[in-house]
């Protein structure tokens, strides 16, 4: 492409795109419930706010349980975007947080969830307490158990492992999955993970999550179990692919990647398995172990 011609085309395109209306699909979607002046106000409102009046107006809309749900969602979206202005948003941060804490107990479940999501991402202690309370109060949950556990997982410094272990027997499968993910931060869960991983009667999903958790809390136990699972043609192929992928990309499994017997076994798997995912994982492993290396191509002088 001739660069000078490309510049000319760019200048034409910018002029044409600025003059043309926006793609109808996008415009009609976010103006669906808005017409005329309200639509124009929404469009203006979706520009990042810089004035106190704009921000305070959005916070008021967010807090109002009687306001249109769409307006409340959009207010939250705009406040979230304004938050990316960093220090410039600082004067509004306390009012914003207080509004979110209020909405975390809103009559509307969706708004409760959205507010709790934002607060949990910010590691808000008030929100964390609400989430713990929600988990401990069957029948009076603010949001689903799965969502509550997921949000608690955002707290990098919290210790929710004892709570999750205590509750895990009564949780639904989605919440169990979130629980297993959260427990990957708990070294005390190593034995549980290893037991679940090696239990062929467990579901594939639980075994895969347990593999990932064991990988984090006790890498050497994971490596030993993973090698056995990969080598076993009687094992679930998706599980074999998952653990083989982990062996490919983890630094401390260098010994496994240098083990010629294991590499030969993976080579057999790459040739013979009918599972496409396992075959691809095997190829990735062989590549990471240097069994399929390419050299530079330089010739002449």
């Amino acid at each position, binding site marked *: 492409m001739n660069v000078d011609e*490309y510049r000319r085309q760019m200048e034409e395109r910018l002029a044409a795109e600025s003059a043309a209306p926006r793609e109808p699909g996008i415009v009609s979607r976010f103006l669906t419930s808005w017409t005329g002046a309200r639509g124009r106000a929404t469009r203006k409102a979706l520009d990042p706010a810089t004035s106190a009046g704009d921000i305070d107006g959005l916070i008021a809309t967010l807090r109002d349980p009687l306001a249109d749900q769409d307006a409340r969602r959009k207010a939250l979206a705009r406040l979230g975007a304004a938050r990316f202005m960093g220090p410039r948003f600082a004067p509004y941060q306390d009012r914003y947080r207080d509004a979110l804490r209020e909405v975390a107990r809103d009559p509307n479940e969706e708004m409760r969830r959205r507010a709790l999501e*934002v607060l949990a991402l910010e590691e808000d202690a008030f929100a964390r307490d609400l989430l713990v309370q929600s988990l401990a109060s069957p029948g009076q949950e603010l949001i689903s158990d799965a969502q509550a556990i997921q949000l608690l997982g955002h707290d990098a410094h919290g210790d929710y492992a004892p709570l999750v272990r205590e509750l895990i027997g009564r949780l639904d499968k989605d919440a169990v999955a979130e629980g297993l993910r959260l427990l*990957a931060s708990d070294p005390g869960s190593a034995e549980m993970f290893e037991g679940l991983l090696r239990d062929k009667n467990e579901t594939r999903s639980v075994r895969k999550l347990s593999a990932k958790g064991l990988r*984090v809390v006790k890498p050497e136990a994971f490596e030993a179990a993973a090698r056995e699972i990969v080598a076993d043609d009687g094992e679930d192929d998706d599980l074999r692919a998952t653990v083989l*992928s982990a062996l490919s*990309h983890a630094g401390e499994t260098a010994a496994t990647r240098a083990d010629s017997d294991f590499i030969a076994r993976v080579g057999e798997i790459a040739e013979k398995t009918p599972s496409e995912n396992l075959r691809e994982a095997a190829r990735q492993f062989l590549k990471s172990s240097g069994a399929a290396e390419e050299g530079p191509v330089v010739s002449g*002088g």
Partner: protein
Amino acid sequence: MNVAIEIPRTDSAGRTYLTWAPVQAKARLTGAGGSGRVDVTLRDSGAVGHVQLAAIRTHRGASSLLLSLPRSGAWVPFWIAGVFQSPSRNYGDAGIEAVDAGGAALGSRTMMIRVRKNAIDLDAGERARFLAALATLNGAGLGRFKDVRAMHARLFDAEMHGNVGFLPWHRAYLLDLERELQAIDPSVALPYWRFNEPAPALFTDTYLGVSDSNGRVHFVAGHPLGNWTTDNVVGIIRKPDFDTNEAPWGLRTEADTIKLGGTGGAYSKFIAMQGDPHGYAHTSFPGSSIYDTGTAAKDPLFFLLHANLDRLWAYWQWAYKRWDPANENSYAPASPNRIGQRLDDSMWPWNGITGGDRPTTAPGGPLAASPLTSAPGPSPLVRQMLDYQGVANGPDLCFAYDDVPFDI
């Protein structure tokens, strides 16, 4: 008689990586003997990636160049660059060869024209290599990615958001990550998510994953990112509030973003893109890691989102010719901006400075080195991030975008 060719941007394994920016190379005769000169033609020999050649530094090179090489073996310089919009897909699919007047081959070099591409334009091999490198960097939570993630935490917000330094800081951040990936696989360049356009191929279980009703991202079994772990928590939370077969709604268009700087092309106005489309792109995923500045770097998609923002900045720079820090419209004035935001400031965390107006810690250490260039150095300055292709004789940082040319 042969022709030896030396090209900068060559690593210790003899692999050469070019972008659109011309680099000065050299050629000489070997085994010729005698006096006088021999006319040799250098020409593009690539099958996918292509190069252009010139006697001077220009964006208007040609596919061949006639050189008169002394029989003494003295070097003769020439300029070489990737042909705009003809990048490589694999190492070795680009190259040059030297032939004599009769067309006999005297020498050759293979190379790669390596640029950042739209993520949905990567072929299967490029995608696989990118994902594998990213997964290795993550190391299931124990790899070097821990430091990359740690740099972009809420505690350090003032260093990178809400101010004029937003773009150069993130340009350095992406460069740091990309170099870490290239240390694992040098054929990898960071792709970008062009969020103003539909990218359904990106949000699949073979690429960056599919979200379930709880926002959990799923991959096919054995996918390199299937073991993605950050902060000791396994997995990615991503809840798009748009149909991933379409683009997120409500974002400022690319055309309007480019025109933010006004007809005068002023950076101080263009930086408003930090709110829209940047902020809106992030908040198109409510309740997700990528939604919040403190957790955004936990999702790999974050880096593709920011690569697109950086590309939009690069595109604006090209449109208005704003590479030179000496031009007042290329950047913002020193006052009233805080430390770390001014042209001659070094940037945290790479400068390792803590305390005072800086954060109390500086994770990650110096900026990752490159085998291809010493620029910008371990502790980059803001000004070094502007002229990333060396158009205005700044430091060529050895990256480029597939749709932003080198243009003198």
